[in-house]
């Protein structure tokens, strides 16, 4: 029943609220109910991000690549002060240049390989803010722009775990791809659809890096966020698409929790239902397919993934849907029974999913919400 929710419309992911409403103390339950009510009352006035996005108008470019880099100067206010416009010479601040070059490389991959003009397909301006907050160990896409922290630069050198988040170009490709997903499949950011959303960002983030390094599939390291961890950490990066669960194993940070097979799927209420954990499964499927096909991964494997993200996946899609859709797409692009289609089948089989090419899932959203889910839970609405 989880896939009937629209968590993007919820304040707290609904699976968390459901858990609180079921297991919480009286006070917690009332908080959960209240939160859901507030959320529901807002819903009438709110539209899906991609349908109503002021940034899409504000950041409309005249057609080509247009980037603006802002500096938050260690504060939380977005977007901050403009520090580099499209065409300006490089800055003395390395983070400015990394954000500029990385968003440019990501734009180029989408334009040259997939014939997509920016995040929205219509030349939307690429806005990036650097130096967000102080000691901020993160990067994110806020629905309108990319935002990067400086890692642990406020800590003593021997205590630092993270470098600045612009240091790895695949992080930039990852964040920008969240924008593409927002305008296309609109995968909700929770549970399996959320893990697919994450995986799409890792896949295209890695492809941006591979394209920049001109690497074939077998030459690539398939590591996400290489260079992001300091030398104080025992790890090569944040995630491994080649061998999920092996990117780091550190006394402070713990061990990379990613599974690479459905048998090891992690059920959790943390991390919006493990979106950064279970993404290891579709990540690894993509890796296997790219290796099966050889050459440059962004060509055949990337094309299959891009078309699937653009034309097939919907907000509630799960791993099995993605397997079926990529198989279908490979057939449409390269022919039924083609080596590309066979490779897709092999890739998903490696992670424990058998493609079903005969029955495409429905392509409309069920249109359910968190309040109705909660009302069903507390018995105020009929069960489905």
């Amino acid at each position, binding site marked *: 029943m989880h896939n009937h929710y629209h968590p993007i419309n919820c304040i707290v992911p609904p699976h968390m609220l459901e858990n609180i409403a079921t297991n919480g103390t009286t*006070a917690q339950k009332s*908080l959960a109910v209240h*939160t859901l009510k*507030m*959320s529901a009352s807002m819903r009438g006035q709110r539209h899906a991000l991609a349908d109503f996005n002021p940034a899409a108008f504000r950041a409309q470019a005249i057609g080509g690549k247009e980037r603006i880099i802002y500096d938050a100067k260690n504060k939380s206010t977005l977007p901050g002060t403009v520090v580099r416009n499209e065409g300006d010479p490089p800055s003395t601040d390395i983070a400015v240049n990394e954000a500029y070059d990385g968003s440019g490389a990501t734009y180029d991959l989408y334009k040259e390989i997939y014939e997509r003009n920016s995040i929205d397909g219509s030349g939307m301006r690429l806005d990036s803010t650097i130096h967000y907050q102080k000691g901020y160990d*993160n990067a994110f896409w806020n629905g309108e722009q990319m935002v990067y922290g400086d890692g642990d630069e406020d800590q003593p050198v021997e205590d630092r775990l993270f470098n600045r988040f612009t240091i790895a170009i695949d992080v930039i490709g990852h964040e920008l791809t969240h924008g593409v997903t927002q305008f296309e499949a609109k995968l909700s950011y929770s549970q399996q659809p959320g893990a697919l959303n994450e995986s799409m960002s890792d896949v295209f983030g890695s492809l941006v890096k591979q394209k920049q390094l001109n690497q074939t599939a077998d030459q690539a390291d398939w590591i996400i966020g290489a260079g992001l961890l300091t030398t104080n950490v025992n790890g090569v990066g944040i995630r491994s698409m080649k061998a999920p669960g092996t990117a780091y194993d550190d006394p402070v940070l713990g061990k990379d929790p990613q599974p690479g097979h459905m048998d090891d799927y992690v059920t959790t209420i943390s*991390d*919006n239902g493990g979106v*950064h954990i279970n993404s290891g499964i579709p990540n690894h499927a993509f890796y296997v397919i790219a290796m099966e096909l050889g050459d440059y991964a962004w060509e055949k494997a990337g094309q299959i993934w891009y078309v699937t993200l653009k034309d097939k996946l919907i907000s509630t899609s799960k791993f099995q849907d993605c397997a079926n859709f990529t198989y279908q797409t490979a057939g449409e692009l390269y022919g039924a029974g083609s080596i590309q289609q066979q490779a897709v089948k092999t890739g998903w089989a490696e992670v424990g999913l058998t493609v079903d090419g005969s029955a495409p899932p429905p392509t409309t959203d069920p249109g359910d919400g968190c309040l109705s889910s909660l009302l069903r839970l507390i018995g105020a609405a009929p069960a489905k």
Partner: protein
Amino acid sequence: MNIDKIKFERTGGFAGIRLAAEIEMDDLPEDQKREILDLLDEADLDELSEKLSGKMPIPDGFVYSITVESKEKEYKVLAGESSLPDDMQPLIEILESLTKRQMRKKAD
């Protein structure tokens, strides 16, 4: 408010690396303890649910779980970072810093 313990957890974010600690108030220096209590008062946990309304999870945003335990009552807040009011930022910073310190200490 008489608080015994704060359980803090941060998950999600680009890295998806979990930070977690149980912070015993009695283990803290008196001035830090008072600072946290003041910030908790300002955060107004009873009203927090309303403050949290209307925000959606953002891709790669952190997810916070904060449980405040006292003899009389337990409060639990689960929220994405985009949902938290700006005036809770200083409290989050202190809790994160204490959590990181505790995790480093455990690793030694």
